[in-house]
């Protein structure tokens, strides 16, 4: 094949990926069209808002970094929230001028990278101790490290006036974080719910939230590509070998300790980038939504739902999680199921008694008001029982092989053998 052909070949081989990225890129417009222009109330209820989608992206990146170490080497990193928190706190503290050598004017991209490098250091320290253990002991010791950090950060009044509530970006940095190429104004956009730039392009104005969605989405995509390349490199194959049978990996000559440590560092780096994006978008962080172990729990949930060891799966898992949560909770931007039922059923229907003296309205309230987590828990149990490979894992098993085969035959690029290899190992991206 001529060298010039490779972009076309690459795109041909990645049609499903291209479709998903395009869909995500068009999402704000689709949402706007359905919910606002056409005024479809149902669309507003079913589809997550753009702000929620932004959260899906950065938290999805965190979940992917969790899957990178946990799903590919088989070492469950239950303390992963520590890296996410490191990223979030670093970005805010840099903006507040609280980090030595880095003034409040430090470009956002630079503070993201600094956050990533700090997380790498932290991962090496934690990993040096933790990788002496395996299985549940590894999970527990990483959890222990993260909880120590959580307790420490909750009590450290240097990071915020009230460390229990966590830091927020102060008056020294009142403008939004500029995401883009440092030093080139035209190549930067400000992100944040209220602080985001408005961009007018081709007569179409994007609001601050949509701009943040695209800017954060671009970084997440870049990080995904980086992790995906690593997964498909010789190094990535060693990671998979460790998951499959570590004793064997040692017997054929791999110093698995070093490979695990390196993979952990890479994973910590991307977790911190995710945390940094989160803090840049929200402009504040609390110990509860960053360093706390339930943050790791959410990443685990996303990985199980999306598919363990499928890299992109956790993003879809998070999307599923957030969509269901927003749909079932009353506070979602679009309204969710509860207000929809209240508005749609009418006062008369709602006051009809259904069980004894309980009216339908009270029943709906009891079942739906603030119980999203309960239903998410049930969904989680059902996933573990009936969809153990997760959304993406199952799709790949059912369709992936055929798709890969069909496209290989159709485009005759001779990659049939590779496609089958990937199907069998389930590592195809």
């Amino acid at each position: 094949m001529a060298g010039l052909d490779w972009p076309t070949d690459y795109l041909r081989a990645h049609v499903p990926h291209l479709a998903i990225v395009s869909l995500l890129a068009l999402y704000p417009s689709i949402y706007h069209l359905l919910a606002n222009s056409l005024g479809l109330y149902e669309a507003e209820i079913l589809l997550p808002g753009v702000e929620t989608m932004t959260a899906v992206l950065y938290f999805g990146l965190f979940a992917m970094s969790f899957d990178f170490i946990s799903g590919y080497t088989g070492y469950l990193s239950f303390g992963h929230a520590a890296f996410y928190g490191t990223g979030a706190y670093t970005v805010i503290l840099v903006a507040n001028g609280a980090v030595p050598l880095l003034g409040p004017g430090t470009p956002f991209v630079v503070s993201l990278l600094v956050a990533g490098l700090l997380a790498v250091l932290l991962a090496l320290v934690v990993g040096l101790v933790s990788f002496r253990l395996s299985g549940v002991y590894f999970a527990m010791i990483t959890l222990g490290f993260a909880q120590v950090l959580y307790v420490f950060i909750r009590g450290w009044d240097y990071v915020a006036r009230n460390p229990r509530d966590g830091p927020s970006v102060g008056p020294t940095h009142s403008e939004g974080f500029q995401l883009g190429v440092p030093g080139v104004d035209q190549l930067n956009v400000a992100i944040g719910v209220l602080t985001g730039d408005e961009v007018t392009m081709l007569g179409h104005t994007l609001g601050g939230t949509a701009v943040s969605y695209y800017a954060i989405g671009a970084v997440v995509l870049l990080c995904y590509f980086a992790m995906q390349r690593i997964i498909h490199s010789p190094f990535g194959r060693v990671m998979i070998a460790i998951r499959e049978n570590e004793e064997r990996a040692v017997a054929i000559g791999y110093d698995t300790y070093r490979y695990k440590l390196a993979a952990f560092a890479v994973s910590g780096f991307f977790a911190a980038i995710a945390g940094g994006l989160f803090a840049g978008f929200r402009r504040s962080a609390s110990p509860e939504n960053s360093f706390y172990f339930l943050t790791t729990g959410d990443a685990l949930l996303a990985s199980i739902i999306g598919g363990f060891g499928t890299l992109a799966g956790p993003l879809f898992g998070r999307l599923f999680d957030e969509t269901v949560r927003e749909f079932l909770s009353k506070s979602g931007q679009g309204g969710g199921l509860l207000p929809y039922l209240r508005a749609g059923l009418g006062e008369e229907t709602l006051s009809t008694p259904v069980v004894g003296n309980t009216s339908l309205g009270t029943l709906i309230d009891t079942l739906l008001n603030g119980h999203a987590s309960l239903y998410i828990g049930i969904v989680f149990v059902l996933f573990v029982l009936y969809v153990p490979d997760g959304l993406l894992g199952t799709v790949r098993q059912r369709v992936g092989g055929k798709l890969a085969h069909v496209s290989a035959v159709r485009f005759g690029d001779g990659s049939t053998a590779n496609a089958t290899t990937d199907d069998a190992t389930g590592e195809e991206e």
Partner: protein
Amino acid sequence: MLRTRGLTKSFGGLVAVDDVDFELGTELCSLIGPNGAGKTTFFNLLTGVLEPTAGTVELRRDDAWDDITDASPHETAQRGIHRSYQVTNVFPNSTVLENVRIAEQAAGNDSTALWRNVDHFEAYAERAYAKLDRVGLSHRAEEAASTLSHGAKRKLEVAVALAGDPAVLLLDEPNAGVSSESVDEVRDLIEDVAEDHAVLLVEHNMDIVMDVSERVVVLHQGAVIADGPPEDVRSNPDVQSAYLGGYEPGSLDDGAASGDPEGGLS
């Protein structure tokens, strides 16, 4: 190629390997002994899985003896001592080819490459394919290793051990659990790999041991009680009593299993 001096391993009061002086040349040498004689422990000492209580393990390289007593398992593998396992030990969800390819990769210097797609490193796959060809599994290269039959997995074990072209091959019961039809195939395979590798074979099937070995070492209660050509060892009275332990002759199940009433060592 490989030698031990006074190699000893005790677990509490039990001496599993007792002061073994052993030197492996380029010949096909078999290590036999009743169950619990210390054969697998001896293998684990050679490959660094276990640390000896006393004694040394040395590997000959460039006309000099290299002390590898304290080497870890991955280091011994990198230095060219590869082993196969008594209990099948593969990467179950990887393809047959990947099982060998990842072992070939271990012998190269590209395992820390983070950025290039693994398909760019074709040489490893080609070499792995050649190993599969040698053990007769190349037609199943793309199948998941877990789908192989037990006999085929044993062959895959040998192919993985061959990957990276080791100096010394330690084969731990390559015939364990193999169906009687496949025994001949595995025997041929052992003879084949012995042509260009130093092979130390642990085997319970005495027909195969006596057939393929150029030298037989007998381990009993951790100590070497006989060492020599198969026919000498077979007639060695110490060996006979160690194996038979005072029981009636002909009780060796290996002979019985192969349908030979006069089987065993007698």
